[in-house]
């Protein structure tokens, strides 16, 4: 084994062939792959849209052969609130990043805290929605809508949860003053992931909830 001499101290600047930071290039590549992952889930939802043989249905009422009546299952007002908060969280995280880059710890911690709050609200909204659906008789196995809906929104919700955990760790580091401007890229990468989760929801919201 030969020892490799490192001229560049850990965590400091290093030159790259592209002139761009490799970590940022990596997160963009990951986001690119995620685009195709969600494309498969969205197309799965769209292809199976309106093909459920039994209810409950997303937008129409349904009466089962046994006479049980089911209302349209989607709750637009609650999800609209969740959508608005997720959009605002994107604003909050760029403000946190801006604070981190300027060395403003208060702005970093405050805006990041607001982002995390919005993320937790969104996840809570989804947990409530899923629980409500199961109580109403819609599960992953009920019909094609249930299968494609839970798969699509469930994977998105998982991404949001991962994002919340990531941002929470950065928030704790920020509280301890461990995100100086020179390390703001750590937050920028998490912010890029968070924005991606947001843009995916920008597509899911009209496709699932608004288009009949």
């Amino acid at each position, binding site marked *: 084994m030969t020892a490799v001499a490192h001229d560049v101290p850990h965590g400091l*600047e*290093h*030159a*790259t062939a*592209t*002139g*761009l*930071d490799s*970590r*940022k*290039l990596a997160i*963009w*590549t990951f*986001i*690119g*792959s995620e*685009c*195709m992952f*969600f*494309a*498969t889930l*969205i*197309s799965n939802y*769209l*292809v199976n849209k309106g093909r459920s043989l039994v209810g409950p249905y997303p*937008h129409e009422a349904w009466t089962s052969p046994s006479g049980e009546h089911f209302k349209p299952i989607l709750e*637009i007002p609650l999800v*609209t609130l969740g*959508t*608005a908060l997720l*959009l*605002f969280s*994107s*604003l909050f*995280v*760029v*403000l946190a*990043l*801006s604070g981190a*880059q*300027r060395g403003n710890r208060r702005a970093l911690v405050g805006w990041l805290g607001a982002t995390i709050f919005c993320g937790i609200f969104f996840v809570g909204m989804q947990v409530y929605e899923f629980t409500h659906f199961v109580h109403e008789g819609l599960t992953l196995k009920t019909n094609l809508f249930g299968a494609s809906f839970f798969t699509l929104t469930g994977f998105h919700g998982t991404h949001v949860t991962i994002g919340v955990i990531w941002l929470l760790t950065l928030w704790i580091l920020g509280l301890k003053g461990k995100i100086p401007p020179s390390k*703001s*890229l750590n937050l920028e990468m998490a*912010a*890029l992931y968070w*924005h*991606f989760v*947001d*843009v995916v929801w*920008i*597509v899911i*919201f*009209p496709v699932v909830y*608004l*288009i*009949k």
Partner: protein
Amino acid sequence: MEAHATAGGHQEHEHPRAAVYAKVGLILFVLTALEVGLYEITYGEHTGASASAIQPFFVPLLLLLSAAKFALVAMFYMHLKQDSKLFTGIFVFPLTIAVVIIVGLMVLMAYHMWFARAG
């Protein structure tokens, strides 16, 4: 604009100021309100005579609003407007494949359904 030096020591991009972020946030909020408003006008409980006139344009309008929101977040919040074009390429190339997958599968399934119905 705020200059932001990167790991390579380059001026990779300049991030917009907080006021620009807030303006974009406001526009995103308005566009979301328009989406839901459009849904309420077309399919809500208190739809008027205009509902049937809007219905043929409902989906294209909704997709247009959604695309505008997507572009705003990508350009301003994800900084693709200021950052290296390489990042834009890395994002847009798979995004294009994603759109082609969605449209292609929908066309394929629609054709399959039509073919099955035609006998």
